[in-house]
């Protein structure tokens, strides 16, 4: 699956917060139709990298390109329209909107736009797909944490992004939910979506990722297949050193 052309290019990306270098000269490529794992110990800069790609922050230096178009320097709304959608590490659903409207929110202004009837039909389809078919009429406040994560995923999918960023989407799930979650992402992978997956769950990394980039203290320390990077001594040291 990882033989596709490169779709997202991150080049010498650096982000400083005052004296702290959260992302340090990071470069990698994401190929079309691949699931790329972005892994590393806590505080290694994964979420910051996601924030830089999604346009939440502007990089201190370095560039990000999506299919040749420069994303770095654009606002989050422009990045989204260009074709990048995301979920948040700490789930952020829209509590004042119905489930359907939460999903339509992802379609109305996103990459591939839908509004009115078609948006609603798509929202129902996506809610069923992520496993919220039975909860459609409920208020968002009645959803469990995992269901909120599902809702956020449906919202991110609604704009039909070219690249999907999932920041610890599987974190906090119980074993059954985790299996369902992995099945769902593997389903997305099968339909050829391009995904950057920030993840700590090793099972998920092994079964879902075509390739991984490993970060430590903001810098890339390894890159390759999940088996290869997870047996890399430096990676093991980074993880153990952090515990």
């Amino acid at each position: 699956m990882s033989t596709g052309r490169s779709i997202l290019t991150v080049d010498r990306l650096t982000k400083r917060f005052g004296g702290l270098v959260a992302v340090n000269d990071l470069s990698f490529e994401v190929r079309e139709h691949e699931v790329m794992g972005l892994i590393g110990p806590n505080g290694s800069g994964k979420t910051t990298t996601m924030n830089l790609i999604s346009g939440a922050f502007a990089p201190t230096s370095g560039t990000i390109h999506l299919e040749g178009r420069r994303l770095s320097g654009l606002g989050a709304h422009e990045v989204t329209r260009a074709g990048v959608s995301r979920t948040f590490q700490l789930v952020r659903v829209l509590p004042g909107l119905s489930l359907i409207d939460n999903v339509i929110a992802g379609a109305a202004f996103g990459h591939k736009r839908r509004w009115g009837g078609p948006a609603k039909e798509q929202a129902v389809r996506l809610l069923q797909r992520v496993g919220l078919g039975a909860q459609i009429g409920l208020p968002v406040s009645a959803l469990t944490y995992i269901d909120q994560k599902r809702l956020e995923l449906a919202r991110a999918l609604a704009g039909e992004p070219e690249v999907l960023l999932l920041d610890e989407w599987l974190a906090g799930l119980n074993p059954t939910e985790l299996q369902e979650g992995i099945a769902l992402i593997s389903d997305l992978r099968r339909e050829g979506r391009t995904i950057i997956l920030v993840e700590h769950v090793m099972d998920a990394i092994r079964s879902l990722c075509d390739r991984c980039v490993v970060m430590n203290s903001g810098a890339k320390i390894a890159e390759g297949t999940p088996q290869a990077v997870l047996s890399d001594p430096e990676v093991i040291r980074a993880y153990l050193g952090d515990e």
Partner: protein
Amino acid sequence: MTAKGWKDLVLIGVLVLAAAFVPLVTDGYWLSIAVTAMMYIALTTAWTLFSGPTHYISLATGAFFGVGGYLVATGMSDHDLPFWLMAAIAPVVSVVLAALIGAATLRLSGIYFVIFTLGLAEMIRGLVSWVQNNFLGSRGLYVLTDFTEAHIYWMLLAIAATVYVIGWLIDRSRLGFAMKIIGNDEGVAKHLGIDTARAKVLLFMVTGFFSTLVGAIVAPRYSYIEPNQVFSPELSFMVVIMALLGGTQKLWGPIIGVIPFILIWETITASFPNATTLYLGLCFLAIVYFLPNGVVGLVQKIIAKGRSA
């Protein structure tokens, strides 16, 4: 939802029709109160258009209103221009002003926006007074028209109805949907592809337009205009209080807030003319503290409780 939306529109239609008869059945004191109430209904509805969904408390109403009143006055008094021309120009000036304020401040959040809008009205008032006194000579500005209180009332009613219909249309549009999302979580809104700054500035411009139009239409009521009176911070606070009292989640919330407040306010200003600012502050605190979602929110809560009981 759609059916309910239409019901809201029909209800407002009936209310507007009923309100149109007020000048035919009253005059004098009560008509004057009705004009004031209608002025505040138009201003509060326009305020809610922007501040309801964004939760940005704007204290710029006085600035917009003042631009309306002052431009009409200076145009008619100093340049012999017709009332209608000035009433048409003033809102356009404010739209530009709103766009500038928006571009400068809407990236700021919360409290900074509140303070900026308050400062803005004061600044414009100071600027206009200064220009008036130093360059134009402090001649009084007179707005002499043939309008009766009833005429002004009907014009304000037409503005209030227009603002309502515009709000109703926005509510059903992608812009309205964007505003709801922004009100829920602005950071998420950006990540869904919404140009949040643009959406907010657009609505702020609509609010500015109508607040100014109200100021222009009301100007003939005062006949003699001075900057200190039309660029009034008190007006900005009154609008916020009445909007919060009614509740900002529904566009018809202001109507529920304005009418009782105007009556209470009349009593207060008549009984304690020297302590109005004090009472204004107390009302403000009481509403924010006891009725955070306004009367509409309270009623909805009671209904919801009744249902679940």
